């Protein structure tokens, strides 16, 4: 069991120094009071089905349960967690279940906005690189393009005319729009939007998964 614990938790001294203030990002801790008189064996028996899942390995002692998950299925109720320790301790008012779970998904979602902000910067940089080349190309091809476009008639099928569909736009106008769009280069906006989405999702997930796992443990402990 010590081996398992070690693989999931860095040495205590290291954790105290560096991770104490930030590990709440992907660590979820909590406690639940057991029913008066409930033995730790009974409590772990009730929780056992949660850990009988594909990709989950667990070790149990008289008052602690350590688990790890690998490639866990989305159908696994604790899919969001990759490992953790559940311990039963004696509290002032009776036995208490204390849990400490880790989730790579939470960490991933916390870091995702940074990645997308990086993509936004990359898009801007690529746009800047492209701009001189695009400008040169448009200068050289301007005259011929404009004369070509004037000659083109936009056809409209009589059936569409009869059904009342709007007439297609003249290509000259459309061409101008296109050029305008092109000179701006690729937009970093989608990357900013996704950065915001993941930041929001992180906050939602950190609160929601904390509550869900608590409710799950409570339900399992009370269930028959």
């Amino acid at each position, binding site marked *: 069991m010590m081996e398992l614990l070690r693989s999931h938790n860095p040495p205590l001294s290291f954790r105290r120094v560096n991770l104490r203030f930030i590990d709440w990002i992907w660590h979820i801790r909590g406690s639940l009071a057991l029913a008066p008189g409930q033995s730790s064996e009974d409590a772990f028996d009730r929780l056992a089905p949660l850990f009988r899942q*594909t*990709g989950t390995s667990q070790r149990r002692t008289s008052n602690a349960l350590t688990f790890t998950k690998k*490639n*866990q*299925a*989305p*159908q696994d109720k604790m*899919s*969001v967690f990759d490992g953790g320790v559940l311990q039963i301790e004696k509290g002032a008012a009776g036995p208490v279940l204390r849990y400490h779970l880790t989730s790579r*998904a939470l960490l*991933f*979602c916390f870091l*995702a906005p940074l990645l*997308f902000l990086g*993509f*936004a910067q*990359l*898009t801007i940089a*690529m746009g800047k690189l492209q701009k001189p080349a695009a400008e040169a190309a448009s200068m050289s091809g301007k005259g011929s393009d404009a004369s070509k476009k004037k000659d083109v008639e*936009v*056809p409209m*099928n009589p*059936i*569409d005319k009869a*059904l*009342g*569909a*709007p*007439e*297609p*736009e003249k290509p000259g106008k*459309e061409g101008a729009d296109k050029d305008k769009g092109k000179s701006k280069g*690729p937009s970093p906006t*989608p*990357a900013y939007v*996704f950065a915001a*989405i*993941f930041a929001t*999702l992180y906050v*939602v*997930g950190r609160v*929601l*998964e904390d509550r869900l796992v608590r409710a799950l443990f409570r339900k399992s402990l009370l269930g028959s």
Partner: protein
Amino acid sequence: MNGIRVGNRVIGADAPVTVGWENIPKVEGGPVKQFIFTWFQPTMLFALIAFWYYAPNSIAKASTAIGIGIGFKVLLLGLEWVNPRHESWRLTWKELVTDLFYVGLGYTVLRMVDGYIGDGVMVEAVQNAFNWDKFTWFMGLPLLVQAFLISFIFDFGQYWMHRGMHNWYPLWLTHAPHHYITQLNINKGAVGNPVELFLIGLGVGGFFDFLPRAALLAGTLGLAVGVYQHINVRFNTPRWWRFVFNTTEHHSLHHSQDYEASRSNYSGTWIIIDRIFGTCVDGEAELLGMEGGRRMSVGETMTYPFTEAWKTIKERFGRPAVAVPAE
């Protein structure tokens, strides 16, 4: 497991599947719920077609299409909540985050790469090389015919690309990660290795010169039909629809853990292409995925085609490990 004979093949020998429309459950609940989930799909399809057909030029733009696409998907996520097809496919926070990550890649990095080496660039290069002009006569056809042709030709290309992915090992390596999903939700179509997403996006429709409105109409066919490939909603899809168009049922069979079932229903929008080439199986499956439903992590999804290719090359061409006898 015995499986069911469909044509020359036995479907469902490895994992449970349901074959035949008569065996597929209907929407359960009161009359209002049944009404909504029977008429939702055709109503939305025709409403969207009418919108794009009549919208003034100032509104009929790609940006509007993107907005409608996002709005429609949010609505469908709501329907997943109200009327799930399978409880085991329920969207969790982790699944939503993972799916959106792949969607985000599509809107950012992939779009950027596509701008340099995508099909638009390739079509232009081919046209320049052979001095072809685009097929301008195409623009004189009725709008809906243009839209149908754009959509059908694109899907025809996708069908063969997709079928190729299931039959040729190097292409399969790029597509395999997408088959590790174990449930269908709205954004699951985006889950996969970026190389595959790039390949599947290549189309031959670019050779035609079409009216922008026709392209938007074709796009709406893809949205209002293709979107149901990956969704956790039970609909009473009309008979004519499931004969011509792809459905969740068809695509769930394609994602089934059953090997033979996964080698069917390759098209994206027009299931009739599968009927033409004899690869269509009508039915559904709940148990999805590969390797008994192992979930593939984001990291493995990104590297899988390359690491697997390396492993295969090493096995085939590498020096066999010779056991050195102990002296």
